[in-house]
């Protein structure tokens, strides 16, 4: 507990606490009896505490049971033992060294002991085999919904700026191993702003129309003609004809799948401003066994004929419920 800003506070707290505890004990001991000054002739067993107010208002003494007093002493003793064993007296960590982070680590260890064997069992299997396992599919789906769905959507079909994981278009490659690498190590895709290199706004517009022509989308043919020679600046990353480069993560421009949108205006914005995308690395956060299951799950999304129906059927069979 090194949270104090000054070395003064820890002893301050400790001393005050101990003095308080001892003070309570002292108060208890002092108040166990009281001296009553009795007027002559007064019966000492008239059950009052001896004080009189307003001439005749007395205070009866109904003694408390003695075990109350022993319980008070016991709680003071208990406090002493507790504060010796656990943190409480300032920065003193307690003989047992208990910490809330320690308790958390203990919980993690127990969870690993309970669930570790299941995850490690799948880690030994090939990704495609794991992808066909219904129980692994269920685990993968739950992991996905917990860790991936915020960006990629609950249905894994992505959003603006976050790839659709259910199609066949992959920025870095779609084999199960490459998907696993993407999840483990993360990706950082950068498109530099190319507006200045290309020239004026008119040049950027021309290139945008040329790019749209690559995928046979509607475009202005004249502008596309002017854009084609300018496109040479783009081919370094995006390849001739805009086929993409999975080594760099440069998208394929010759299909109708767009990460940020495929309208001419949006393409111009992409060229002018560039794009910066980060997929976080999950190697340390989740560990390889869970990433292995996730990779298999993600790969299975784009490799079944009708993924949801097939999965529902297999889960139904696994649960043994009537069809």
């Amino acid at each position, binding site marked *: 507990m090194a949270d104090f800003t000054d070395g003064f506070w820890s002893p301050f707290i400790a001393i005050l606490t101990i003095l308080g505890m001892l003070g309570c004990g002292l108060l208890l001991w002092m*108040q*166990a*009896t*009281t*001296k*009553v*000054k*009795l*007027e*002559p*002739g007064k019966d*000492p067993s008239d059950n009052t*505490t*001896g004080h009189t107010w307003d001439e005749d208002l007395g205070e009866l*003494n109904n*003694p*408390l*049971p*003695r*075990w*109350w*007093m022993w319980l008070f002493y016991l709680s003071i003793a208990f406090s002493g033992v507790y504060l010796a064993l656990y943190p409480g007296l300032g920065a003193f960590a307690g003989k047992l060294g208990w910490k809330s982070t320690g308790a958390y680590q203990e919980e993690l260890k127990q969870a690993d002991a309970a669930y570790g064997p299941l995850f490690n069992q799948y880690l030994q299997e090939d990704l495609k085999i794991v992808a066909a396992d219904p129980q692994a599919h269920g685990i993968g*789906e*739950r992991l996905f*919904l917990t860790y991936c*769905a*915020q*960006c*990629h*959507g*609950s*249905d894994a*079909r992505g*959003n*603006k700026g*976050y790839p659709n994981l259910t199609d066949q278009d992959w920025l870095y490659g779609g084999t199960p191993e490459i998907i696993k690498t993407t999840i483990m190590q993360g990706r950082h895709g950068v498109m530099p702003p190319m507006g200045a290199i290309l020239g004026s706004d008119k040049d950027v517009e021309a290139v945008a129309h040329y790019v749209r022509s690559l995928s046979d989308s509607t475009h202005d043919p004249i502008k596309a003609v002017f854009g084609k020679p300018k496109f040479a600046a783009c081919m370094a990353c995006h390849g001739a004809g805009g086929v993409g480069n999975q080594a760099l993560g440069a998208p394929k421009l010759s299909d109708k799948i767009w990460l940020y949108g495929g309208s001419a205006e949006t393409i111009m914005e992409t060229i002018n401003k560039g794009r910066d995308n980060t997929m976080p690395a999950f190697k340390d956060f989740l560990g390889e066994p869970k990433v292995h299951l996730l990779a298999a799950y993600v790969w299975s999304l784009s490799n079944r004929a009708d993924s*949801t*129906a097939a999965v*529902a059927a297999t*889960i*139904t069979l696994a*649960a*043994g*419920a*009537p069809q």
Partner: protein
Amino acid sequence: MSESAPHIAIVKMYQARQQIYPRDVNGRYASLRWLCVWLTQLMFYGLPWLNWNGRQAVLFDLAARKFYLFGVVLWPQDFIYLAALLIICAFALFLFTAVAGRVWCGYACPQTVYTKIFLWIERKIEGPRSARMRLDRQPWSVVKLLRKSGKHLAWGALGLWTGFTFVGYFTPVHQLAREVSVLGLGPWQWFWILFYGFATYGNAGWMREQVCKYMCPYARFQSAMFDRDSLIITYDAERGEPRAASNAATATSSSASSAAACIDCSMCVQACPTGIDIRAGLQYMCIGCAACIDACNMVMDKIGGRRGLVRYATENAIAGGLSKAQIWRRIWRPRVLIYSAVMLALVTVLLTSLGMRVALKVDVIRDRGSMGREVENDMIENVYRLQMINTDETAHRYRISVSGVDGIVLATTDQVTLAATETRLVPVRVRTPHGAGRGGSNRIVFEVQAIDGSTSRVREKAAFFIPR
């Protein structure tokens, strides 16, 4: 004139406890109390051993967060029923305290019940009242050692059995019994069995009336729950005073108006488990056990006097000389009627609600990444996840449907099978045709219906967003 100097007395603010040796009584109320002991303890010790549906009938499975009460399975989401149950208990307490005073304390409270059982053991081993007092005064001998240790062993055994039964409500008792037989309990089971056993032994064997006198709040707010028409244990002072041993001679007077007065035999004081004298009037220490009534009636029977010198009566009855019929009519007064009506209403609502529960819970969680997206065929699509919980103990098959916008359809599979007690997050995609609905948020409804014969059906509202 001589004046003696005022002297100083030392007054103790705490006093040592005086051991109370309640005298045995037999009578109508003693029998009633034993009946309550049997009923409550048969239930407490017996319920965990009953089975239902292949599992323990009454089980509070804290680890799995499910409470089982025969056919009713309560989930954490059903916690409101516990609140309702506690409110009903409170009103029940107010009701029967307003009618008959501290009948809970004297007849049904676990402290009273267990003290009674432990006192019975003590009587069997150490003997009746005078023998117990004599044994305590004796110096230590072999006989005393044997009797005392025998008593404490018996108490300890009953305490452990009670602790074991208590833990059996939280861990299946058959499994617990097996673990105990090989002494292979987990640390928490050990702790709770010993803790609860020690608490039973301590409270019923040692503390007894100290709990009622100094620990229980009921005694202190009883004056707020009685009124002048509540039946309380009353000493008829008008009939009984002046008390004198000589009253015994005139006890058998045949005149109905002069029933026997108090003969100061102090049986009522000896029989009292809290050590009070009921002749001093209603006191907070009186737990309403009616032992003094039985004691006095026993003595009256012996001397041929009329019973009822100490009896259940109301303040109004004593003050106004009301007959029994009149007392009973005054039971039905506004306070009692209102408590009864409220209780009846609450119990009806609770039972109806429990009976109408659907074994399915559904929550709709919108995806926040995109409000709405355009997909093929010019449709607008929103993505949600349905959290579906099958709270039943058998698997069920459900169909999901959606409504609220013209032409709205579910684009993912509409059939889901959940295993017993399974919770699943189901991603769904919902599509509307171009032009349907209005731009912005549209209120839609998901309906999940069981299609395997059971009648579970849940409708949940959600919002469908159409980009403008």
